[in-house]
């Protein structure tokens, strides 16, 4: 489910891989160091590494992932660079960036009233 693509169109322009033109950088995902391509959206680096769940729904507790990829749906919200609810599909990766998932089931269990939801 993960990985990078090379797009070769029969008889058409060769889009080639993005990986050859962009620099590799290391950033952190839930505290673990991971590698992405500088400037690509956080959600793309994570997807290419096989991480699809970008967080958990605050009410249902179900896993959420990228849905529109262009900033419209907010399904990809994560805590990035210390700020909550950043759209991972629009946020460019850079060296040392800290990215983490929100509303993990363990965090949710500790909140008041969750048993009634």
């Amino acid at each position, binding site marked *: *489910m993960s990985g990078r693509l090379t797009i070769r169109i029969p008889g058409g322009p060769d889009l080639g891989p993005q990986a050859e033109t962009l620099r590799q950088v290391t950033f952190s995902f839930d505290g673990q160091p991971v590698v992405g391509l500088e400037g*690509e959206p956080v959600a793309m680096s994570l*997807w290419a590494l096989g991480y699809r769940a970008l967080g958990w729904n605050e009410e249902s507790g179900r896993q959420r*992932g990228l849905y529109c990829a262009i900033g419209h749906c907010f399904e990809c919200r994560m805590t990035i660079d210390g700020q909550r609810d950043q759209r991972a599909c629009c946020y460019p990766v850079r060296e040392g960036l800290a990215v983490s998932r929100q509303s993990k089931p363990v965090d949710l269990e500790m909140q008041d009233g969750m048993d009634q939801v």
Partner: protein
Amino acid sequence: MSQTDVLVVGAGPAGLTAAQELGRRGIRVTVIDEYPTAGGRLLGQLYQAGDHWWVGRQVAEQLLSDISGHPAVRLRLGTSVSGLERRDKGWVVEDTSGGEPAMARAVLLATGAAEIPIAIPGWTLPGVMTVGAAQVMANVHRVRPGQRGVIVGLGALSFAVAQELRWAGVDLAGIVMPPPPRNGMPGWTVEEEWRKMAHLAHLAPTWMRPLSSLLRRAGWRRRLLAGAPQAGVAVAGTRLRPNVAALAIEGDAAVSAVVLQRLNGHGNLVGEPWREAVDFVCTSGGLRPIPDLAAAAGAAMHYSWDGRYDVPLFGPCGDTTVPGLYVAGNILGIEGAAVAMAQGQLASVGILRHLLGKPDGFGPEADQFALQLAEARRHAPLVFDPAWAAIHEKVMADFQRETREG
């Protein structure tokens, strides 16, 4: 407070074209876009139009290189515009950067379109995405959306993206239909989805094109589509499966299968459902304009029952019913990028007229750009939704009436 002549919201083909036209004349323009890269939906577009290739990214790069020759134009990327307020001499524009709001004498809204979700059980699982998201992943970022997917829903984008995924080497189980609505649910029907087929027939392989006149007739359409083999017919590098519906998407932490069932000629489910293994699902529910900022700024609007056709009333040069507020591109209705570019040119004329206080100025330019718009429509490689032509006529007539009365 930063001061500029024109603030453009959206760096897609419409916004960039208008910025280039205005910048060429030395007008100070700031273009704001929330995405980190300029180009809007151009960035992912890739198809053969006649004997040449439309590579949207190259079109965007050309526009940006033209703009870089005009020092009066500035780009601000990674910033969302959150509000607009009219002051006596112009507009105060708020954004999410946390900085001071910008002041501009005129605003152009070129915010484009969004995709309409198809909600079937399991649609919130990671791995379910819009068909446009798969296009962005593959063509813009060269990231594999999965190993094998399925497209749910018919539309111009379903075919375009199926072909693009094929070029990217991603396997598809085909294009299937959304499930028929449960008893008494209003709105979508299988019949409606099938009716779209007739308008998309020009995308089909040559041997199928003669069928398009048959597909326009209800009886034939039912017989042909219900009689298609369960494995589908080869179209756009994949298989179109008009008589198969996706009932649900399954998976634990991410998508692992789609549940399918056969449809009969009346669009009802028949036989036993079965599972096919997929690790991603694309929904293609169609596109709708994003007119929110125009409505918030007080522009008179045309509303539709389901929001799909909500657009600001607009005039020939992208004028709205609010002085100094202009619109161009897919905010006016869903069409291709060449149309959006021509609308951007026309809006630049409207804006010049406003800034220079010459309501009848730039006649030859306006005529030339209107011709280019008509040309772009005539040569459009994709017709997204034939309903737009009639809506545009009504909206422009309403605009004339409103501005005459006002």
